[in-house]
């Protein structure tokens, strides 16, 4: 039984919490059914379905905490997992940063579940793969891609009477299309909650067009260029930066948001005044769960307002220590923009470079969030509002902080997910001045 109903989950969690003799107890039940299909060299390579349900129990005696998990739910198993957590807590050293479980909360449900995604069948997955392959074969192109879809639920209860339950769904499709001779490569990524919003035929056309159009790429000298980052290309850089919005690190002096002389940069102008970023669990296109990992209720939270830092992420311990209100960690990242599409931005560009995708992004210097990475699967030169020719890929060394001070224009935000992160973002395509490319890559 991978997916419990709310009533089933509440009944089980109530029993578990009642079994504990510790000072406090929090139990969390999660379940998921995930399906996937993978294809490469124009053939399906693997496919699978994984169903999983787990119960995690965390108990505390004073400041000693123990956690145990189990995936069977008969009476004896429930008793065993609670006792194991209690045994571990008794053996654990005291955690001076221990914060008690949250009190009873009122959560406002958000719309994170779509039945259409939960209804996906192995046939549907096979069809997406074979349609992607067929469209590429017809154009003498080679497809490699991955479709992953899933439904899940999370439910939790604690000894203070708090309880939460919600279901979610998601679908993520990526496809890399290469020319048979390996001289051209294109890519498309699509992340949706509702499978009805996924039209693979349209997406595969985008990837195929970029693959065919990127053959015979020309080399441009590395340097500073005006670029248009498609939302998927921006996701890797902007998503990375949000790993460093912790208040504690800023207050401790080891973050780009630390202030000279001590303290943090809340209220300071860090980005171009057009930068507005917030988190909102009720966002219609990118909803998130209405609570964070600690059970704090999420509400709309402004993170950057008019380029100034509006809030940092306080853990419950750090909020208490600093005398600040504890706020829930963001469940999504929503960046405001304009109304134009990527194509509209291209049309308004005199000279510039269009970047489809960024790749293997790693931190070079945390002091400035200087990141390095490469362009991949569709890099094009723009002149007088038109795509003129494909370009060889570049390595960049750029900080998203500097990048968001060099904004020329922001387009209409779309839903994206980064290559190496599960955070759902709404990001605009963006035209940026002086983006720093430091070398050329021969990779296609």
């Amino acid at each position, binding site marked *: 039984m991978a997916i419990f109903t709310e009533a089933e989950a509440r009944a089980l969690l109530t029993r578990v919490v009642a079994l504990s003799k510790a000072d406090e107890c929090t139990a969390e039940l*999660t379940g998921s059914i995930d399906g996937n299909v993978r294809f490469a060299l124009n053939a*399906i390579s693997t496919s699978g379905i994984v169903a999983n349900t787990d119960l995690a129990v*965390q108990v505390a005696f004073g400041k000693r905490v123990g956690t*145990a998990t189990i995936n069977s739910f008969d009476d004896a198993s429930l008793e065993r997992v609670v006792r194991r957590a209690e*045994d571990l807590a008794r053996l654990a050293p005291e955690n001076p940063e221990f914060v008690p479980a949250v009190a009873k909360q009122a959560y406002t449900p958000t719309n994170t579940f779509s039945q259409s995604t939960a209804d996906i069948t192995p046939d549907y997955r096979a069809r997406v793969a074979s349609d992607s392959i067929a469209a590429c074969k017809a154009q003498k192109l080679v497809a490699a891609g991955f479709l992953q879809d899933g439904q899940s639920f999370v439910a939790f209860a604690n000894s203070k009477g708090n309880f939460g339950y919600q279901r979610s769904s998601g679908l993520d499709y990526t496809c890399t299309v290469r020319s048979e001779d390996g001289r051209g490569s294109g890519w498309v990524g699509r992340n949706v909650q509702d499978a009805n919003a996924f039209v693979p035929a349209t997406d595969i056309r985008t990837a195929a067009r970029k693959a065919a159009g990127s053959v015979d790429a020309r080399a441009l000298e590395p340097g500073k260029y005006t670029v248009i980052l498609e939302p998927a290309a921006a996701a890797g850089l902007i998503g990375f930066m949000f790993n460093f919005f912790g208040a504690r690190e800023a207050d401790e002096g080891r973050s780009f948001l630390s202030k*000279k002389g001590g303290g943090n940069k809340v209220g300071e102008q860090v980005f171009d005044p057009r930068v507005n970023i917030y988190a909102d669990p009720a966002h219609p296109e990118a909803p998130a769960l209405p609570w964070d990992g600690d059970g704090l209720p999420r509400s709309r939270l402004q993170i950057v307002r008019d380029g100034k830092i509006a809030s940092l992420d306080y853990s419950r311990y750090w909020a208490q220590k600093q005398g600040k209100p504890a706020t829930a960690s963001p469940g999504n990242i929503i960046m405001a923009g304009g109304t134009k599409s990527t194509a509209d931005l291209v049309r308004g560009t005199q000279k510039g470079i269009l970047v489809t995708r960024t790749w293997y992004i790693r931190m070079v*210097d945390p002091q400035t969030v200087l990141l390095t990475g490469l362009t991949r699967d569709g890099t094009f030169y723009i002149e007088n509002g038109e795509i003129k020719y494909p370009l060889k890929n570049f390595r960049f060394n750029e*900080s998203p902080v500097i990048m968001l*001070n060099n904004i020329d224009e922001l387009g209409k935000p779309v839903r994206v997910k980064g290559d190496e992160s599960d955070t759902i973002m709404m990001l605009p395509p963006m035209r940026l001045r002086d983006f720093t490319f430091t070398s050329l890559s021969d*990779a296609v």
Partner: protein
Amino acid sequence: MHRRDFLAATGLAMGGGVLPSFLGRAIAAEELQSTLDVAVKKRLADAALNAAKSAGATYCDVRVGRYMRQFVITREANVQNVVNTESLGTGIRVIADGAWGFAATNEMTVEAVAKAASLATAIAKANAKTQTAPVRLAPTPGVGEVAWKTPIVKNAMAVPLKDKVDLLLGVNAAAQAAGANYVNSMLFLVNEQKYFASTDGSYIDQDVHRIWAPMTVTAIDKASGKFRTREGLSAPMGMGFEYLDGNTKDKFVSPNGVVNYGLSYDMKEDAIAAAKQAQAKLKAPSVKPGKYDLVLDPSHTWLTIHESVGHPLELDRVLGYEANYAGTSFVTLDKVKQRFQYGSPAVSIVADKLQPGSLGAVGYDDEGVKTKKWDLIRDGKLVDLEAIRDQAQILGKSASDGCCYADSWSSVQFQRMPNVSLEPGKTKQSVADMIGGVENGIYIVGDGSFSIDQQRYNAQFGGQLFYEIKNGKLGQQIEDVAYQIRTPEFWNACVGVCDASDYRMGGSFFDGKGQPAQVSTVSHGSSTARFNGINVINTARSLG
């Protein structure tokens, strides 16, 4: 992809919370020392083999896996988290009608594994309908009932938790006393108890141990707002707790007194050095960009070998199976046939699944193939790739290279990078000798930032410690150094490798590949090596 953000991604460093599901269930520390009865494992394996054959499979392998992990995570005087986990189950892979099928179960009963074997066979038959060519498996001899164990001296799982906590808190206190503002340190211990059986007639029981003790020391200048970190210079190893004994004979002291470590690590000594060096970084001048001769310590070179040699020589990448995620390779089958000049004659690179102390060392791989050592690059020329049983015929080989791995009983095993290492130079040469010949260079210790393109041409690497070399002498510590390479040009710029007396390994616990993604562990050895005329950039920026 070498992953750095594991702790952040799993939230383990935050304390408490729910474990990522791949770690399995949390258990008591005493359970970490227990093993499963081999007769129980054989009974389960036989049930699966028989069920698969009855269902029409022409080949079947069974992996009964018990994966044990322990994390002890600290910062300054606090223990942030202690987590013990166990993941237990059986994965069954079959060939039926010429196609692969796979199924796994966490129920440790004869009925459950037999059912999973039948399901795997049904999946194989379904997959066969779209298969264009049948799977061809290179033969591997059945070895009967055998066992292999990492040759550990002290089982880390048996060391009392108190000793581990005392060690880490002692390390943190020493670093703080030496000038560190913050210290994060941890122990990450792994024991894979893997039982493999196949229709080839093998029943292989393996007990694999690994240890990792990373730390990050941070120094801060509050007035200027500047901060710098120095990571520990340890390597994850295929060893027991004896790795942390800090034997003097395993220390490698460079001409300017920087201490590196071989098969034994002195964590406290390194923490004290890290605190001093992190403070020195705050005041160190910024590098002048340009071409330099680089002298690279093995604590640094491992990651460059990993990204620019280990990955491009994976046969599945060469063929295009990883195109959508990890990428393809600039290496082609033609380049192997033509003995492509990958590096200078000083560069010989070997794959080695036998190397003692390495992360990749096992007796048999995850498809029952006896492990071995083989040449990848000999005297600069590309001579071979990394292949498993269903790929061997593509290279015209009669047997697998024995580098197949799955990160869990529930994951499908596939081709993973073996330990890939640069052979030491054959003529006697010390680090001091090598530096003595450099006019204008930089000496780099420790691994830092890393990034490489999807065909493994263009890479950029940072480090932990950088020292100027002027007219054969090591000079001041400098900062903001990263070098950019084009893979074949870089390896062809290698003009020398120190002799075997300087040989050490580095490695990764989190080499990522595949969709759904799997992680693997791998070591890379080398002696200090020199590369001439490499492009160095300055990474300092100002946020105004």
